[in-house]
């Protein structure tokens, strides 16, 4: 097993959760498109999810559906100086030097919408 972030194994579980959730919500309706939100700071690698998707959807109502992934980038507000800034990685500091920040965006792991046959 790889311990590296983004190995195929880790995203497998996430992709399975997507398929399970969509099946639960949409019942038998054949799904044509799935749109996910995977923040760049979520720790989930979008390309690996894409790679898993066809495999996991096989034999389900999602088989053959297209997968769209929107990747919100990181944004934070500094709790010390109040500045809002782009956060490219979770270890980055505010320009004031503070690590004490509130994450506003970038950690999303959401199913935004699906398109099903009417």
């Amino acid at each position: 097993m790889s311990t590296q972030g983004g190995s195929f194994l880790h995203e497998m579980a996430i992709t399975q959760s997507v398929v399970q959730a969509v099946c639960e919500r949409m019942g038998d309706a054949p799904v044509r498109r799935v749109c996910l939100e995977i923040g760049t700071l979520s720790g989930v690698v979008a390309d690996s999810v894409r790679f898993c998707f066809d495999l996991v959807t096989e034999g389900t109502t999602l088989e053959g559906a297209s997968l769209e992934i929107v990747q919100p980038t990181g944004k934070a507000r500094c709790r010390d100086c109040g500045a809002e800034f782009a956060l490219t990685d979770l270890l980055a500091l505010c320009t004031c030097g503070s690590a004490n920040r509130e994450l506003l965006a970038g950690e999303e792991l959401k199913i935004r919408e699906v398109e099903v046959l009417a």
Partner: protein
Amino acid sequence: MCATCGCSGGTILEHHEHGHEHGHEHGHGHPETRTVTLEQAVLARNDALAELNRTWLADHGILAVNLMSSPGAGKTTLLERTIRELGARLRVSVVEGDQETVLDADRIRATGAPAVQINTGAGCHLDAQMLADGLRTLDPPERSVVLIENVGNLVCPALFDLGEQARVVITSVTEGAEKPRKYPQMFRAADLVLLNKTDLLPYVDFDVAAFLDGARRANPGVEVLQLSATTGDGVAGWYDWLRARLP
């Protein structure tokens, strides 16, 4: 909506620079589809089960702590010592997550504590359903402590809430000091960081200051304790931390 061209069948469309003719009532073979907004967390189901576990644990006055690390950082060794030194007083029982083997649960049982092994197979993390199953088998007494050894991996366990009250991340000095940089989500999710195998510090090139800096950048204010699970050096701090959280 038409999956190929994005037109929403039926109405007059002005956007046809893309060249497929719409001489229709939408007659070019696109089946009718509708878009449904879900706006749902991917792990909503796990999160809901985790909430049930959390409520159950609170109702029974049980403290559940989730221990996470890379393979071999010393989770089982620390559990063994903790049980030997505190187990009788705190009434510790253990949920062991492992992909294949039952070896770790056997090690725990050898200390006299009840343990249940959960084999995750291909899965590289415990999830809330597995903890619920584990708790049912274990049937821990009221006002006791359940220590959960997650599967050795720093990626998925950070994403899957179990319903535990606290998350502990263990790194050993034989790993790189850049662990927080590589797995910031895990460190960000931690309530406590343990730096283990400090007895080996004289023999390895591990930059403690850089590690502490990384951990605190990922999680400002997080408590970091240094210890050795084999020599027992520094474990008192871990015991204090645990006792302070007893219900």
